[in-house]
């Protein structure tokens, strides 16, 4: 970027002022130094203008997200409430069979955590790794509160022989350190076996990889659809006289400005089985009254509604690029004998690529993170990965899992964002 001179500071003297061959300012300071100084000052001033907002965004946006992502690899639900047994795990290698010291530590921890009512939290943490063990902790907790006598191994095994299960001990060992990669493993449908190696989870439990794939595939499809629908419209808008195109532009901008929930609701009105589109089709006799199409609460609903909602994000960047394309290039090509198709393909289309890139990346990035629309019209087959994040946030309350999924999603969005910045330049983003 060209560095402009600050007009106030550097008033260059005539060549005669440069006795030793160096240019100086009016007050005799070397010009290079003065320039540098004034530039530094200008830089600082510019930066000071941005600083309040930068600080604001850091505090209200960057830090919160960082803090949330920390949960994806940090979960102290077990280690904080079961300190003695965690200590024992730290001192003894994997594979050491639990000795009486371990059982004593376990029993003491169970008593303490049952007393302060944190046993449910401990059980929940282990239940992530070994399903069905939550009640082992809570019921054992209720019993040990009434008193328990050494030797603890026998006492605990008598309460429930599941305490001898090696899978349980392996899970407790994994949970004994708060830092863990298990949630990332789980978000790519992997799990750790008893000996610490990594393997895929049971086929019937696999869901996240498939959902990531679906999210990317649907986003790609939606991007393609917005391109197919957006390109002709943008072209029309760009080539019509200003007065007409401004009028038609309202048809693009009105959906853009209308509440997302309103648009989603109207798609529910249109697409449902007793909805407007099915009514019209039945009325026209295209389908019988008994064969109404299922267009909502499935992938079709998600695709239609999201294409509609994201279409303006494709049209606007395309339009702004197409407006600047000089029509005489195409005319020149035609006059040189190109058919209209060749002229379009070889001359016009390549010039629209910057707009296309901007629109496509924007639509894709927004689609990947969509939550509201799939939640309302997606049914089960139209759910995306963000719905899973929301589910773990609010239903299962497995926040570490939500954070791990969010981290993976965020990483992919940031890569795309970086690409966008490289290819289009973030400062070329325009809205309406």
């Amino acid at each position, binding site marked *: 970027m060209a560095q402009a001179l600050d007009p106030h500071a550097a008033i260059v003297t005539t060549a005669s002022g440069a006795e030793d061959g160096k240019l100086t300012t009016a007050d005799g300071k070397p010009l290079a130094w003065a320039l540098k100084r004034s530039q530094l000052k200008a830089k600082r001033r510019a930066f000071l203008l941005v600083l309040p907002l930068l600080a604001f965004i850091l505090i209200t946006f960057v830090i919160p997200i960082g803090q949330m992502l920390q949960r994806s690899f940090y979960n102290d639900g077990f280690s904080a409430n079961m300190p003695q047994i965690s200590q024992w795990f730290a001192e003894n290698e994997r594979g050491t069979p639990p000795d009486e010291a371990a059982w004593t530590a376990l029993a003491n921890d169970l008593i303490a955590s049952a007393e*302060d*009512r*944190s*046993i*449910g*939290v401990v*059980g*929940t943490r282990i*239940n*992530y790794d070994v*399903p*069905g*063990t*939550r*009640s*082992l902790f*809570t*019921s054992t*907790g209720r019993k040990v509160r009434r008193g328990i006598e050494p030797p603890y191994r026998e006492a605990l095994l008598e309460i429930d022989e599941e305490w001898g299960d090696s899978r349980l001990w392996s899970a407790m060992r994994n949970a004994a350190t708060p830092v863990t990669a298990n949630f990332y493993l789980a978000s790519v449908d992997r799990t750790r076996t008893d000996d610490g190696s990594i393997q895929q989870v049971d086929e*019937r*439990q*696999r*869901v996240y990889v*498939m*959902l990531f794939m*679906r999210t990317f595939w649907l986003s790609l499809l939606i991007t393609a659809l917005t391109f197919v629908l957006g390109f002709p419209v943008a072209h029309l808008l760009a080539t019509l006289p200003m007065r007409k195109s401004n009028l038609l532009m309202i048809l693009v901008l009105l959906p853009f400005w209308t509440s997302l929930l309103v648009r989603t609701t109207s798609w529910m009105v249109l697409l*449902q*089985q*007793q909805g407007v589109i099915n009514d019209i089709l039945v009325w026209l006799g295209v389908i019988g009254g008994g064969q109404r199409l*299922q267009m909502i*609460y499935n992938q079709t609903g998600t695709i239609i509604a999201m294409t509609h909602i994201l279409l303006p994000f494709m049209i606007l960047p395309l339009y702004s690029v197409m407006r600047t394309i000089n029509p005489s290039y195409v005319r020149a090509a035609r006059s040189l004998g190109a058919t209209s198709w060749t002229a379009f393909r070889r001359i016009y289309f390549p010039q629209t690529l910057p707009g296309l890139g901007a629109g496509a990346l924007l639509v894709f990035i927004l689609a990947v993170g969509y939550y509201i629309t799939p939640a309302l019209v997606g*049914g*089960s*087959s139209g*759910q995306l990965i963000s719905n*899973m994040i929301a*589910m773990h*946030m*609010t*239903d*299962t*309350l*497995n*926040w570490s899992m939500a954070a791990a999924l969010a981290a993976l999603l965020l990483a992919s969005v940031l890569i795309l964002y970086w690409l966008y910045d490289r290819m289009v330049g973030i400062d070329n983003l325009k809205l309406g």
Partner: protein
Amino acid sequence: MKTVLILSTAIATLGTAALAEGEVNVVSWGGAYEMSQVEAYNKPFAEQTGITVNMIAADNPATPLKVQVEAGNVTGDVFDVEVSDAIRLCDEGALVEIDPAMLPAAPDGTPAAEDFLDGALLDCAVANIFWGTVIAFDKTKFEGAAPSTAADFFDLETFPGKRGLPKNPKRTLYLALIADGVPADQIYDKLGSAEGVQQAFAKLDSIKNDVVWWEAGAQPVQLLADGEVTMATGYNGRFFDAMVAEGKPFEIIWDGQYMDLDMFVIPKGAPNPEAAMEYLKFATDTQRLADQAKYIAYGPARKSSAALVGLYQDGTTEMAPHMPTNPDHMESAVMDDPEFWADHDAELTERFNSWLASS
């Protein structure tokens, strides 16, 4: 400068506008159920005590409760939750313990501890009503014989049309097993085994392509009313409301109903703990519980309330035949098993999601 000062003061006041005294925030399930609580509890409570009751609707109030307690950010005072959630939250130390001696006795002097039905009093929770998840269908959609059993729900040949089911394993898997001929008392044994779970999913597979999944209690009623589905499972009180109050041509199949209790709990760190306790005591007394049945078809959790249950608010409908606790409806009913779900909810939810997502 002056405007800046005014602005910042305004923002500061907005920020600290804490919940004033004389207020209690109750988080409940919305819809017809919420209305019944507003009529039976909130209005008389506000009249007697002068405490304002704010009603907040949630898809499942246990969710915001867990979130609020774990994040150390409690905004609700009283939550209306299911038993399994009440037990789980109590185990995790999220709830205030409630001494049954504090609750009002029955009109004849029976102490509360004896007046409540079995399972209706827990360490941290007091039940208000019994409710059932039942199948309902639209009478106008089936010519000839009407469906009458859980098995008919899965019979798409005889009873064509879409089905509405809740998007969770708890209230779908049991129904599949019942429809497959598993007796009600063996449901949890079955669900505890891999084969049983497999069997349930296999049965669900047979209708998977024809299911519209719902998430909030008002949705199955709406789906039936809009004709999106011909049969749906949902909460019996909501269907009753649509049938009696709005005159919808629905009918309930009581076979294979899933019974649950709704409980009032108070989270630790509630902003208005005293008002919350007052509200809880008031709302679970004999008269209030009986009054609620005037507005919705759920069975009161106190024995002494049963005698006071009379007519629906329209003055002509007898409530007893619509109660989930009616002995005729209990034959094949599955009771909620909180312990089972505390252990297996996470696992089965994951399995269920995986099953849902695979097409």
